[in-house]
């Protein structure tokens, strides 16, 4: 069912970390790659050791890698399945709240859409503190 993304549809890159499914805007992903020793690492949450993939995204100062366990691929969803994050969730999550761009309903399962741009800000501040 591969069709062009029409205006009523969106594309989302699906990936998995520690058994949890996430999504991100494909336009924010520079590439999918293997772990790279050079790029700074930013985590949504710790990936399992056998995860070999990273999402490479761009910051103002360069690229960073987001370790994931698995990249499922790009999927299309009707825009009607997009939702804003619940207000309470945003309210209570504090600084990290902004990293949640929204939620897509994959059937009855809500999948968080992560804001790589916002996440990339962490890379700038913490990349030097963390080292692997």
């Amino acid at each position, binding site marked *: 069912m591969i069709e062009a993304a029409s205006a009523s549809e969106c594309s989302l890159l699906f990936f998995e970390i520690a058994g949890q499914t996430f999504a991100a805007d494909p336009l924010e992903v520079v590439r999918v790659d293997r772990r790279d020793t050079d790029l700074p690492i930013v985590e949504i949450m710790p990936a399992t050791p056998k995860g070999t993939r990273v999402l490479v995204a761009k910051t103002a100062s360069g690229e960073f890698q987001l370790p994931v366990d698995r990249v499922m*691929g790009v999927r299309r969803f009707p825009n009607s399945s997009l939702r804003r994050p619940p207000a309470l969730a945003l309210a209570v999550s504090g600084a990290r709240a902004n990293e949640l761009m929204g939620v897509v309903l994959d059937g009855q399962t809500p999948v968080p859409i992560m804001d790589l741009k916002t996440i990339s800000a962490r890379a700038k501040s913490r990349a030097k503190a963390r080292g692997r």
Partner: protein
Amino acid sequence: MDKTVPQNGKSKRGGKRKAEVEATTTAKSSNVHPLADALMVLERVAQGDLSARVQALSGDDPAVVQLGELINRALSRAITSVSRDGIEKASELLVKVADEGDLTSWNVTSEDAQLRGLFDGVGRVLETQRTFVREINEAALRLSSSANEVLAASTQHETSSTEQAAAIHETTATMEELKHASAQIAENAGSVARVAEETLGAARSGRTAIHEFTTAMQQIRSDGLAVVDSISKLSKRVERIGTVVEVIDEIADRSDLLALNAALEGSRAGEAGKGFSIVAAEMRRLAENVLESTKEIKNLISEIRESTHAAAAAAEASRRATEQGEKLGSVAAQSVDGILSGVQETSDAARVINLATQQQRTATEQVVASMSEIEDVTRQTTQASRQATSAAADLAQLANRLAELIKRFRAD
């Protein structure tokens, strides 16, 4: 009354006449004619009876009566002489001789020449008797002592013979036992020899079996080495496969990445990226298939590795086992050789024992036979001894009787 040895003729005659006379006397009872009576008395005197007297001293014929009286007077006178004393004494002594056997106390003599001659004659007779008795006594003594010696000797001989017979009998019995025992030994030696033979046979076949076993072990070992070699080759090949699979995996992974990024690009391009996205999706599927396959291959490789490890371990265990087996085999072979030599010795020994006991049995039989003969001879000897003893006993007895008899006569 009359204890001297009577003369046969006289006694016969006397007896007959006496009977006649007595018959005549009794027929006439008190009417005996004095003459007849006188004749009777004279007859009796003639016969020696000096005590006869005429009883019928009454009668018609005074001359006969006188005759009778005269006869009586003459008879009385005849024996009232001095020699009557001598005769009385002599007859006393003779009676004593007869009664007591005393031959030593004859000292009667008489003034009467005839009597004197008679007495001397009697004395000489008695002297002769004395000598006779003495000699008989001596002879009897000698005989008795000889008889006793013979008896003693033959009794001794008899005892010895009996003892000898008993000893021989015991020896014979012992020999019999020995015969039995040696027969038993021979039998045992025989069965030992049989068992030794059997053991020998078994040990020989055991040795063969061990040899075959050792050969088999060696075969297994060389086979095992071949197996180990094959396993090692297999392992190497598997490793090569593993390496190849890793390369494929790498390629597939890269393809997957490529496809993902292509999909990203496709989504970015929007409408234009439609075809691109299709290709990307297909590539992804391809890459996923390859990854699936390589995953399976990797699993297989793991399994093969496990199997080869197990096989190698088994081969190693087998090798150790065969080594052990060979060691045991050589130990067993040594043991069997030991048994063989031991059994051979036993077998030889048993045979020697068998032979020896055979010889012994023959010898024993011979001894028993000889003993038997000796026993027979001894029995005969014993028999003879017994007879001799018996005879000697009789002889001794007779000698004793003789001595006893002679004792009645005192010669000194």
